[in-house]
């Protein structure tokens, strides 16, 4: 019972995988497909890990999807202008960090509610993206070496999966094993207390927003690499799913706090469900019904553990 309560959502993930594997042993359960899922969840998970940082300090960053789109469009435009891969990465990531810093300042320094601050700033970023791209999908001028950053495999693992592992490891260490991470959790847990003991609340919050934007931009770059094109609203789908992953993850471990392992579990649930249902050939509308139901069940499983408490 305690196990169910504590690791309910994790058990739910295992159960979902097991059910799909039984239903479709050849296709879903194959090692190749399971590896493939880690690749499919990688971009969402990277965005969600960024969102986790902001959620840890108790705020929302609704500009992530705008940043994802922006990064792709900016990168392809810069390639068009002849920049090298390294300088494109550097420029886009630095710009995104700056954007995150602005969001962070709006929230931490000017006390604008993060919901409205990041939504409005995300709209501005969206406008910029349209300006750069003229609203069109951009294809041309992408160097193959850049595309290889988002496809193919290395050491038997898909490249996006490797990016995810790297990102998750770094942010996990940051949150869990450093003073900075402890400060972020303290700010999120009780901002007043954090202020009273003299933590640099504003600075740390700004850093959290900057990192969130930076990770969203990384995801945007990888998306452009993977698709070989950049869409001015290509990041639109990431916003709600990223937060869904974080919230699912919050039900997975500890006292309902956002955490990197939790977010990974959340993103995995989302990816596994949509992969499994597609492989089983479930019709579109049923996929929606089942996705919603499975996610609810994954969260509720924990409640039943709790009822025995």
């Amino acid at each position, binding site marked *: 019972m305690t196990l169910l309560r504590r690791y309910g959502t994790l058990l739910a993930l295992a159960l979902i995988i097991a059910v799909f594997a039984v239903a479709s042993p050849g296709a879903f359960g194959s090692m190749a497909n399971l590896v493939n899922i880690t690749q499919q969840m990688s971009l969402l998970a990277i965005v969600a890990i960024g969102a986790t940082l902001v959620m840890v300090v108790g705020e929302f960053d609704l500009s992530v999807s705008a940043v994802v789109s922006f990064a792709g469009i900016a990168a392809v435009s810069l390639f068009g202008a002849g920049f090298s891969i390294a300088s494109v990465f550097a420029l886009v990531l630095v710009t995104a960090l700056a954007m995150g810093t602005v969001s962070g300042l709006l929230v931490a320094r000017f006390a604008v509610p993060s919901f409205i601050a990041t939504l409005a700033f995300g709209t501005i970023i969206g406008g910029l993206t349209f300006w750069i791209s003229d609203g069109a999908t951009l294809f041309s001028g992408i160097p193959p070496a850049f595309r290889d950053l988002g496809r193919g495999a290395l050491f038997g693992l898909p490249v996006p999966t490797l990016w995810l592992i790297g990102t998750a490891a770094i942010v996990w*260490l940051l949150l869990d*094993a*450093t*003073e900075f991470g*402890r400060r972020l*959790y303290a700010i999120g847990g009780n901002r*007043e207390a954090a*202020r009273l*003991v003299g933590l640099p609340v504003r600075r740390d919050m700004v850093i959290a927003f900057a990192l969130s934007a930076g990770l969203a931009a990384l995801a945007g770059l990888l998306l452009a690499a993977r698709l070989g094109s950049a869409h001015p609203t290509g990041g639109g789908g990431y916003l709600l799913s990223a937060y869904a992953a974080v919230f699912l993850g919050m039900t997975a471990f*500890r006292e309902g706090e956002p955490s990197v392992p939790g977010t990974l579990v959340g993103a995995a649930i989302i990816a596994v469900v949509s992969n499994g249902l597609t492989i089983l050939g479930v019709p579109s509308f049923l996929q929606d019904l089942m996705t919603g139901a499975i996610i609810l069940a994954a969260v509720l499983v924990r409640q039943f553990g709790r009822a025995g408490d």
Partner: protein
Amino acid sequence: MTGGSEGHQPFLVLDGITRHFGATRALDGADFGVAPGEVHALVGENGAGKSTLIKLLSGLYQPGAGRILIDGEPAVISGPPAAEALGFRFIHQELNLVPHFDAVGNAWIGRRHPRRGPFLDRPAMRAHVAAVAARIAPDLPLDRPAVRLTPGQRQMAEIVRALMTEARLVVMDEPTSSLSETEAERLHTVVRQLAASGTAVLFISHRLDEVMALADGYTVLRGGRTVGAGRIREIDRAGLVRLMSGGSASTGSAAKTDRPLSAGATVLAADIAFGPAGARARLDIAAGEIVGLYGLVGAGRSALLKALWGAVPAHGIMRLAGRPLAGGPAGRIAEGVIYVPEDRRREGFAGALSIADNLALAHLSDFRRAPRLPMPARRKIDAFARQVGARLRLVAASLDRSPLTLSGGNQQKLLFGRWLGRPVRLALIDEPTRGVDVGAKAEIHDEIRRLADAGAGVIAATSDIEELMALSDRVLVMNGGCIVADLAGALLTRDAVVAAAFGHASADLSQPQNQAAAVA
């Protein structure tokens, strides 16, 4: 102007400080000084400006006028980091722990953590905290998140936090208000050790006996102004009370008033299993009786009251005047049961509503425009709030403001005030006077007695043994979630109560400084 301890000059001086909130003059010319190695008491009625003064020292507020001198030099404390850098440590009145951090995590926030390379060294973190806690709070569960600690345990976690590193000044805003005798005594010992090692301690308390026993010097605030200061040995309790109240109020001595005991019929009969890990209680409360509930921090008093209130699951029998109690808090309110929670911030009131609305919240339907129209009449709510305010001497700029703008003691009065004027059959009261000044404490005690005189059964949990002895006709002592003693009449003595509270737990508490009996 100040009373330093033998020969020391004050190193921290406040001179003519003011701080206004709109029209409220929280501080209006306060002077104050504290010397190294001195235990200095800051006393005053609720709303006198004590906490505001502390917040100025911690850099949370800036003074409107006046000077802060440190080592004779004018200083600006720009914010909490600056105060921390000066070596000032604070335990604020409203506790400020990170809810999901345990005591170890909370103790290290804002400090330089022990590290291995760039990463935290968790064993070292815990070892250091455990060493500090062993001195003052040996029973404190170090690995439990703060949300799941009792207010008393949270108080101890804050104290541990403040004593983690060397300090020049330790400021404690009512640190003992939710500690029982034993724990308070342990804290006193530590305070004396701190002072002996040259640290200045600024101590705020409404327990005047504690102040008399512990402090070297004192400062009295009234209406934001310093109205007296000096050495504690040159004044007595009554003198302090006179200064605090401006000579108008009663001495507020916590003497027991003899009430004719009209041992009425049984109002409450309960035999329940409740709360964490096998806690079990059997009790009978008679009409007109005030039953005190005592125990060490974490003994299970609050858990028992909550179970009786129907706010946490409990199994067993609960009968009010012979009829089973059901339906959670709402059902109990309908039956004439009332409840005062212990943690005003978390359980007390909704910050989004005004003081008046908070007072009306528990029985909104009493304030309808018309009996069948579920729309509250502003006028009726305001009238009720004014009446409560007057009866409990609430110091508030306006009843339309949020309760969060009130001083700690005044917030506490709200929790009791919301039930005034209703017919009561059973009152469940948890720490009724936490942080309330002596004058208002007497008022609240009178109200409680009035309830009992009108035929209600009263259970009052308290950590303040003075209050327990002054108020109770009978005392139940809890330990480890069970009632271990039922004392009344001749058996009801301080010694007996304290001894019972230790019970079998006394084995853990065998350090020499814990001679609780000697205090009695």
